[in-house]
């Protein structure tokens, strides 16, 4: 697919596991990295940071109108109230879906994504198909996620080109009035906070 096909990278990448291990050893030998810090970094992004954080933000916004207002006005501060902040979420903007408007987030230039609330991005978000088509044919992309919007729903696609990170606040599904905040958070999917999914109650479709 690339412009150049004459690079010998395929054979080099065949033993990539070994190559990365060698690089880690080299950088450790040279004193640039602390191997214990690498282990903490890996553990952080595998077990501590992920879309359950964002789901708690969304659930809070559903049950607490004052929080929702703060979230839409200054998302960075509101999200920090729940303890989520920092790397790749230094400046947050929350955008709320409404019955007439759907929001969807992409990074056409690389893979910018709000790590503190959603964790590391899924492969499809970083892939050429999503990045190329989200801005041009959002309805076609949504259909591949099984999402069909009303034909008169406005679609706003946010291309994350600078250091502002976007979190979609999906609509609260009907029939969830009696649920606790925790139960509501359990309904919120990662994709609904990127804008490629809707929040649904099991069995409601």
């Amino acid at each position, binding site marked *: 697919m690339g412009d150049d096909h004459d690079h010998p990278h395929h054979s080099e990448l065949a033993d990539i596991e070994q190559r990365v291990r060698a690089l880690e050893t*080299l*950088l450790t030998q040279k004193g640039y990295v602390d191997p214990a*810090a*690498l282990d903490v970094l890996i553990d952080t992004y595998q077990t501590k940071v992920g879309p359950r954080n964002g789901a708690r933000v969304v659930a809070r916004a559903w049950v607490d109108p004052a929080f929702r207002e703060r979230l839409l006005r200054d998302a960075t501060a509101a999200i920090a109230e729940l303890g989520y902040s920092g790397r790749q979420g*230094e400046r947050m903007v929350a955008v709320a879906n409404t019955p007439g408007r759907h929001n969807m987030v992409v990074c056409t*230039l690389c893979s910018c994504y709000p790590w503190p609330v959603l964790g590391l991005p899924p492969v499809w978000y970083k892939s050429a198909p999503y990045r190329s088509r989200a801005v041009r044919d959002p309805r076609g992309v949504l259909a591949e996620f099984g999402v069909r919007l009303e034909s*008169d729903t406005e679609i706003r696609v946010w291309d994350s080109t600078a250091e502002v990170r976007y979190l979609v606040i999906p609509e609260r599904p009907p029939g969830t009035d009696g649920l606790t905040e925790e139960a509501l958070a359990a309904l919120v999917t990662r994709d609904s906070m990127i804008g490629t999914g809707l929040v649904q109650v099991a069995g409601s479709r």
Partner: protein
Amino acid sequence: MRYVSHADLGGRLGLGPVVTEPEGVMFHAAWESRVHALTLAMGATGAWNLDMVRSARETLPDYLDRSYYEIWLGGLEKLLIDKGLVAPEELSTGRALQAATPVGRILKAEQVAAALARGSPTERPSTHAARFTPGQRVRTRAETVGHHTRLPGYLRGKSGVIERLLGSHVFADSHAQGLGEDPRWLYTVVFDAAELWGGEATAGHRVSFDAWEPYLEAA
């Protein structure tokens, strides 16, 4: 040599359907999480900045043939050599052959949590007033530039409306070239899809991006 980004994908055709995955899947091999961690740890040394990282990745000639973390690995290897931290022979043999180049900081395990919580905010004070105000119509720069930029190709030379002033931020174009932070006003600019895609566009579809002031002129 002309600067070419292979990562500017917005609006390109023929790249196939989106392949989704379950929510829990993050890495597909152990080496991917190691590359992720190595990249963050090396970034913490201060030997380069995030905009230089993006520039190193997007100029990999085989960018589109690489998986995501292969792109990260390629960017890391390129920066290690370009900044003189590692010699090419060291990279190919995996053994240290020369003394280390001094770096600003070594990230220790006990510092990771605080470093991640702090992040790298890019907002900076400005010494001059913002040129545009919300509601104002602007046109994006039509010309290409010979360096890293965050003005996507599909948004060049297009007419849109300022929606929001986001503050003054480190200017990626300057920062990536090692020209300092050079903070500039940053705006959210909104475009009707018809301005971008003509007759292909569907009604009610709009696209926005975050634009530093030098990308824009009054329309």
